[in-house]
């Protein structure tokens, strides 16, 4: 059976863009130098690393020294939380993170809590948005760090990070934002006006997996988490993944080029998708519908069906989407994000995430919407509820 893949899972990862691929090729074809080496191969690698660093710095209007390359978003989040907590432990032990953070923040916060830090998990409203006043009320004289993501990976809901960042800065609290899902979707050119630490990941913006960055605003206290070398200002020991970093930098340029037009195009496809579903399928609910959301993400609860069953039917049709829960992903129980928004276990059980991207077409949107209508009808007809 020949079939075409329809990829509606861009929040999970993206296809490598040609510009990133092109930027990486030299390093697979002879330019294998270690940027720390003295000789000409080393210097070439060093030059590439510098170019990547300056490229990122340009995009975020920061200094090149404020760009710390990592292996990806998870490492950057670990570096931010563990590094800031360690650097500031004499000042205080209290950390605030939102309840809907990615697990690389949540689990790290839990680990810090287990090692003597005091962690507050800030709640969200029914739209999946953090209330800045609740965060403000949770701050204490010994609060050292607040970490709230810019956009949620499951619902796409944008968080009040400007406000939270400014609130933090007024109180001398370090503010970290996981901007992995926001980069390339909203303008982050002035991110240091409100954030001190910013997490980025390459493979969500059509770059290769294995690269990411933590932007570290000058003067932000941060202890080294991965010790070993002088690399990355001593913050991250280890020979740099030059190829992936070059790909990341090239993809970053593409991510911000014509951002508004891309966002408008993909956003209108997302709206078309949701309109179709609302028209064709009863008993559905669009999560974070009333929140400001990134343009590509649609998180939908289908009443009376279980998400993995929908996912498998889609997969058999060549359609890639993702479920907020499902033991298939190794994460037991329903999505912590949807639960934090007050959805019942059963509602969260029927939630699916569709994340559109550059390659998405109107035809694909219509195909997936029609497929979903059929699948949901079929599953409901055999549902015991």
């Amino acid at each position, binding site marked *: 059976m020949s079939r075409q893949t329809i990829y509606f899972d861009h929040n999970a990862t993206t296809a490598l863009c040609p510009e990133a691929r092109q930027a990486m090729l030299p390093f697979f074809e002879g330019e294998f130098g270690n940027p720390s080496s003295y000789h000409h191969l080393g210097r070439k690698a060093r030059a590439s690393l510098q170019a990547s660093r300056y490229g990122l710095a340009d995009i975020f209007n920061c200094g090149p020294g404020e760009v710390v390359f990592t292996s990806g978003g998870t490492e950057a989040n670990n570096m931010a939380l563990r590094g800031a907590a360690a650097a500031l432990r004499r000042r205080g032990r209290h950390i605030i993170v939102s309840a809907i953070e990615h697990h690389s923040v949540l689990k790290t916060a839990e680990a810090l809590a287990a090692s*003597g830090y005091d962690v507050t998990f800030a709640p969200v409203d029914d739209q999946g948005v953090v209330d800045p006043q609740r965060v403000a009320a949770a701050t204490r004289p010994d609060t050292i760090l607040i970490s709230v993501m810019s956009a949620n990976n499951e619902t796409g809901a944008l968080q009040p990070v400007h406000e939270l960042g400014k609130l933090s800065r007024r109180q001398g609290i370090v503010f970290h934002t996981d901007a992995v899902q926001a980069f390339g979707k909203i303008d982050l050119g002035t991110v240091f006006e409100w954030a001190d630490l910013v997490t980025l990941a390459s493979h969500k913006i059509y770059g290769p997996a294995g690269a990411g960055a933590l932007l570290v605003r000058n003067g932000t206290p941060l202890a080294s988490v991965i010790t070993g070398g002088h690399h990355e200002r001593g913050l991250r020991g280890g020979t740099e993944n030059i190829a992936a970093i070059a790909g990341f930098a090239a993809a970053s340029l593409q991510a911000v080029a014509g951002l508004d037009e891309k966002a408008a195009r993909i956003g209108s496809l997302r709206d078309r998708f949701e309109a179709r579903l609302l028209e064709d399928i009863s008993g559905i609910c669009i999560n974070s519908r009333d929140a400001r959301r990134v343009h590509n993400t649609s998180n939908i609860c289908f009443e009376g069906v*279980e998400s*993995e069953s929908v996912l498998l039917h889609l997969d058999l049709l060549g359609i890639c989407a993702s479920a907020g829960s*499902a033991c*298939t992903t190794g994460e037991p129980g329903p999505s912590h994000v949807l639960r934090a928004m007050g959805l019942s276990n059963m509602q969260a059980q029927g939630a699916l995430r569709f994340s559109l991207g550059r390659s998405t077409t109107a035809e694909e949107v219509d195909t997936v919407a029609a497929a979903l209508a059929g699948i949901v009808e079929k599953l409901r007809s*055999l549902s*015991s509820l």
Partner: protein
Amino acid sequence: MQSEDTDEHCPEDLSADEPAPGEQPPEEPVLFYNETVIDHFTSPRNVGEIDNPDGFALVGDPACGDQMKLWIRVEGGYILDIKFKSFGCPGAIATSSMATMLAMGMHIDDARLLTDDDVVRALGGIPANKEHCSLMGVGALHAAIRDYEQRSSKKL
């Protein structure tokens, strides 16, 4: 005060999955489930309800994931008809479908002896982390038989 040097993270035993020397890595199937499971998932057998059943069971908890309803019609100790409905994952749907197929036409004394393993074997296996789903079909069958027996003892 808590010591900061305590182990905050103990990784699971990594040697458990370690392959023997020379062993090839297991091949990851393109499909998570095998073809028989997919077949029973996409075309589940014996879906529906039975009016005035001789036995009925409701098992599982939708809030925890899966729920299943199962109806049987029994004559002379034999299961002459069996139908189910399920709110659940592909594993739950496929195992329920297979359980009803195995039980159809069986004497209740034999049906009572059906196990989860029988269902999983008939399906050619299901992924390890999905094995708990197979409990439901057989559990519902056994519960429906118990219900049938209670109803018939009341009639006597």
